[in-house]
């Protein structure tokens, strides 16, 4: 039994306006349509809620990325997020980077996304909501859903305070997922929540089995990198621009080690390193950078694949980050971004956590 209201798509605009005008939130991060593209806006004026595009299957970056250091105490930001964005938000709360009292987390159903440039180029064909039919049509044109989405198991907007659902339902439905969500919705004029039985468990198992086969395919691809030299082959093209780090929603350091002098050697330091080894690659530390990053994010990576999209050199970073991370998370039986109370494995220790080896 859930507390919810069937709104349909049209009334959603009023809901967002209502959240702002009722003071339930002080601002709203909301994807909106801009020409053929989808952009994110931080809206404080209800009048600026013009053309929300919350289900549009376009992925440019993970919007939780801009929430790092959202530690403000007396304001509440409403976040209309895809599940992967909502999950990143929850990890950042665990890592003290977001004040949980300063957000209202709204997650929406997301059947999968295209790269935003692919979406922009095919806006008319794709439309507002992705279906299997559209997927195969685009596939024929050589436009594929992002690799990370093919292994995503959390496509349903069931994370956070409020869910906005359409998958498996006749009409778009707004669901209160927490008391906080319920309180926020009740402030909005024209919204009256009712109790309803919605069972999407069979949908969830379909998603899960599709994701599992997606993941198997990616794991097969990963096998080809399962050797330091082969990994290096792929990373040889890396220019260490660190875009993958900057765009990663769970890479939260104020100053990255690879910006500090030890991680970013220059001038004489570089010569010293060359002297010990005989040679040093320039820019330095490509492999070291990726291994360090993989180690840092492997338990908190929510698998959005923003890193791969951000790479200007087309390196298959979904394999190096989300796929590897998922393998590590399985070891610790940890699912990042699902439960605020579940501690990050790095911060806990159990004698048998790696048994059997």
């Amino acid at each position: 039994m859930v507390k919810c209201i069937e709104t349909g798509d049209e009334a959603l605009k009023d809901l967002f306006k209502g959240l702002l005008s009722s003071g339930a939130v002080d601002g709203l991060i909301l994807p909106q349509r801009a020409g053929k593209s989808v952009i994110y806006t931080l809206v404080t004026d209800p009048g600026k809620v013009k053309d929300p595009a919350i289900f549009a299957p376009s992925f440019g970056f993970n919007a939780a990325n801009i929430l790092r250091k959202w530690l403000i105490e007396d304001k509440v930001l409403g976040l209309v997020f895809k599940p992967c964005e909502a999950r990143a938000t929850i990890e950042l709360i665990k890592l003290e980077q977001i004040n949980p009292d300063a957000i209202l987390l709204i997650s929406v159903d997301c059947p999968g996304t295209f790269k935003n440039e692919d979406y922009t180029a095919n806006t008319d064909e794709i439309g507002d909501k992705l279906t299997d039919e559209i997927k195969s049509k685009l596939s024929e044109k050589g436009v594929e859903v992002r690799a990370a989405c093919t292994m995503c198991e959390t496509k349903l907007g069931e994370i956070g305070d409020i869910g906005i659902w359409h998958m498996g339902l006749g009409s778009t439905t707004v669901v209160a997922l927490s008391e906080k969500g319920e309180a926020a919705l009740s402030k909005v004029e024209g919204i009256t929540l009712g109790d309803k039985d919605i069972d999407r468990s069979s949908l969830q198992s379909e998603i899960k089995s599709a994701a599992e086969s997606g993941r198997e395919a990616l794991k097969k691809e990963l096998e080809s990198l399962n050797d330091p030299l082969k990994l290096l082959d792929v990373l040889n093209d890396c220019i260490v621009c660190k875009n993958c780090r900057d765009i990663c929603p769970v890479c939260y350091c104020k100053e990255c080690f690879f910006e500090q002098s030890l991680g970013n050697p220059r001038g004489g330091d570089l010569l010293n390193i060359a002297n010990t080894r005989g040679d040093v690659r320039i820019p330095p530390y490509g492999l070291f950078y990726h291994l360090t990053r993989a180690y840092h994010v492997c338990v908190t990576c929510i698998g959005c694949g923003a890193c791969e999209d951000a790479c200007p050199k087309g390196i298959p970073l979904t394999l190096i980050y989300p796929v590897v991370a998922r393998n590590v998370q399985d070891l610790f039986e940890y699912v990042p971004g699902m439960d605020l109370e579940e501690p990050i494995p790095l911060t806990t220790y159990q004698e048998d956590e790696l048994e059997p080896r």
Partner: protein
Amino acid sequence: MSEDKIGAVLVVGAGIAGMQSALDLADSGFKVYLLTEYPSIGGYMAKLDKTFPTNDCAMCIISPKLVDVAGHPNIELLTNCDLLELSGEPGSFKARIRKRTRYVDEEKCTGCGSCISVCPVEILDGFNENLRGTKNIFIPFPQAVPLKATRRKETCMGCGLCKVVCESGAIDFNLTDSEITIDIGSVVLAPGYKTFDPELMKEYRYDHPDVLRSIEFERFLAPTGPTGGHVIKPSTGEEPKSIAWIQCVGSRNERLDRGYCSSVCCTYAIKEAVIAKEHVPDLSCTIFYMDMRTFGKGFEEYYNRAKDEYGIEFIRCRVPSVKVRTDGGLFIRYENEEGEIEEREFDVVVLSVGFQPPDGNRELARILGIDLNKFGFCETGEFTPLETGREGIYVCGAFVEPKDIPETVAQGSGASAKASALISTSRHTQVTEREFPPERDVSGELPRIGVFVCHCGINIASVVDVLAVVEYAKTLPGVVYAENDLYACSQDNQKHIQEVIKEYNLNRVIVASCSPRTHEPLFRNTCREAGLNPYLFEMANIRDQCSWVHMHEPEKATEKAKDLVRMAVAKANMLQPLKTIPIEMNHECMVIGGGIAGMTAASEMTRQGYRVYLIEKEAELGGNLRSIRYSLSGEDPQELLRRMIEEVETNPMIEVMKSTTIDSIEGYIGNFKVNLSRNGEKREIGCGVIIVATGAEEYKPKEYLYGEDERIVTQHEFEELMDEGKLDLSGKTVVMIQCVGSREEERTYCSRVCCATAIKNSIVIKENYPDADVYILYRDIRAYGFKEEYYRRARDLGVIFIRYEKDEKPEVTKDGDLLKVGVVDQLLKEKFIIEPDLLVLSAATIPAADNPRISELLKLPLTEHGFFLEAHAKLRPVDFATDGVFLCGLAHSPKLIGETVSQACAAVSRACTVLSRPFIESEGTIAKVNELICSGCGVCVAACPYEVPELVVNERGALVARINEAKCKGCGVCGCGCPSSAITMNHFMDMQIMAQIDAFGAT
């Protein structure tokens, strides 16, 4: 009693007991004279190969203590000395001492050994139990303290070659014995023991070369022994195929006036068998024994492992005899459990010889005016094991009663507390602060690294080509000096390293040897002595991590040693001097638990001059002692209880807090904050040290119909009923069942006290009701030490002992109103039915239910059984890994009252080494947060096992982690967890580790 007490103590005997006592006293602000008749300190422990039950190398763990004693500014060594006379009174004694000359000037001798190499006269090597020769001028063992040569006048032929080669001119044949008189406030006796001479028992054929005393076999196992650690059959020099151990040789033998058990032989025989099997994997090891007395902490499990994992064979029989075949071969004739005579051949027979009092015990007793017991050990009370009966003279170790190393160490500390309590008002009056030369400022200098590569005798040098490593080290960047040392850790070598530091103006020092765990403090001090900041020292572990693990691949091991040295050099190039910070401290003590352990600790603490909070969760003090109504020797435990309660409750320096629970404990050594609740009332107290004396409980049996019939009781319940006159056992039958809940699968340990308790209570019954029948059903009677005497007395009084097997337990049934106990007698192989009027169960001692909570509050580890886990099973029995927290009594493991008292005094002594300091010094190796980089994510907060980091909003309004310098243990977990490198682990900085990694990858 003298008014002006002298803040100095004479410790007689320099084995592990005397050394521990001396170190505690010296660390607590007293001057110590450590006297031994031998040329070196170290005692028996220095001769042992490994130690049970952890199989730690004895020399490896005693060697840092040897060095600590040697280098302690408050300890004056009186080796090769005899105590001649003690006069004066408690608090102000005078001791007259004879210094027997070594014919070597100790000031001049460097211990270089040149004299030894040229001496033409071979004598038997006493340190190696006369199994090989040494020279007439000798140093007993490489780590000897002091490392000085000694000449034996009697056997010297006077050729003078030694004098010719001695470059320091230390040898002088005209030196004579001298006498000194010292002023001391109290005396600690730790003269140790001697092992039994089996020549006295011809049936063991000790005249045969392949029959060895256990201490001789110990030397065969030791890498520094006569065969370099190879187990041989002495008559042929070949590897033996079978070895037998015969237990109780010279123990439990009334005929030889040794009617006591030597307490340690069972476990040491197991250890020797296990280690021998590690040396010779297909060796057959057999132990012939009467009762297997593995009663110590972790011993029963050790025994089980020996049986199950190592395949050691245990044969229970009356003491067998050794026979020699006509061809010289050995065989053992024994009566098996079926009562048949059997014979078995063995290549080697080891006699597990017992302890006896040291030679000169009677003379010592005469000089000191103390009493000896009938066996010649020091006479002490059952509840006062550290007291000689003469005030100002205290005793510890095997001279009290045969005992193992941890108990000896605890008593060493305990006697130190007793000896210092008497003179506590004179603390710090006879000592001088250890002063180091001012630190040289090395900032701005290019690294000048010295590398010292250790042979560790043959430990490293027999595998690794040490000279090749030295030559290689010389080629590494920053290295200006490299050399090899036979023992880098020897006392003389410390002076040598200091000289080299000065001569070559070194500003970084590397020792490539063993583990920093044991030896880093020593070498750091050596650097300090030479004016270098101690953190400019680095170690490369080329023994534990190289020669020991690659002993069959010497070439590769040498290459690895070079790698390790190269990495150490790379790090040394990056080392930075670090400072320690003095922190104010609280000089009060909190004792948790008001049983006999806690009350003794509290009372002794005040005698040292420190205030105590004594916390008891129950409404009454006394703990388990409340149920103990009888003792073996006839002393009254309830009188002890009344006396102790009165003492702590009227002592103005003790605040007794009953019905009080601990809600939280924060802080660290020197500055603990404790929140308490008493009937809902909250209170915060502060203290500098904490003693954990939380006790244990008597197991409530689930077996043998306990709880279903009021005639079935535990030993505690029996004592209460008996004492309160509620039992009339005249003409009645009493059965006692041992090991109820102990030595089982779910509780594998031996509860230690139950055998003595059953014997004690059976004697009580027999003395009160001679016509009562008492049966004790047992698995092994563990009447260790002098308790053997009471075992015999119980048998003489007619108590019947029937042995049962673990898988053939007694059966208790009820037939109407009749209790029936069925037991299969293992001697007669017959089932008996006894119909007892009272069934007394010797229930296990189980850890206090509160232990997990206390362990959580203080972050202390528990053993698998739920007792507290001490810092080191052998040498730190009452310490925790957490500084400033100490352990005593049943919270540690089951033990008797006297043992608890010893441990409580030990905990006090250890606590005084902290409280006697004016302030606490923080470590240099601690974590620091760079708040500019810190993201405040809290990974360090969650990761720290000591809960040190906390998230705070700093002056710039940023949420950042803070690390308290005094609390930080320097483990480095936070630094590993921090993704931003915002945490710098001093001495393990990223750049230092990266330099090491780079060096590892370099060629």
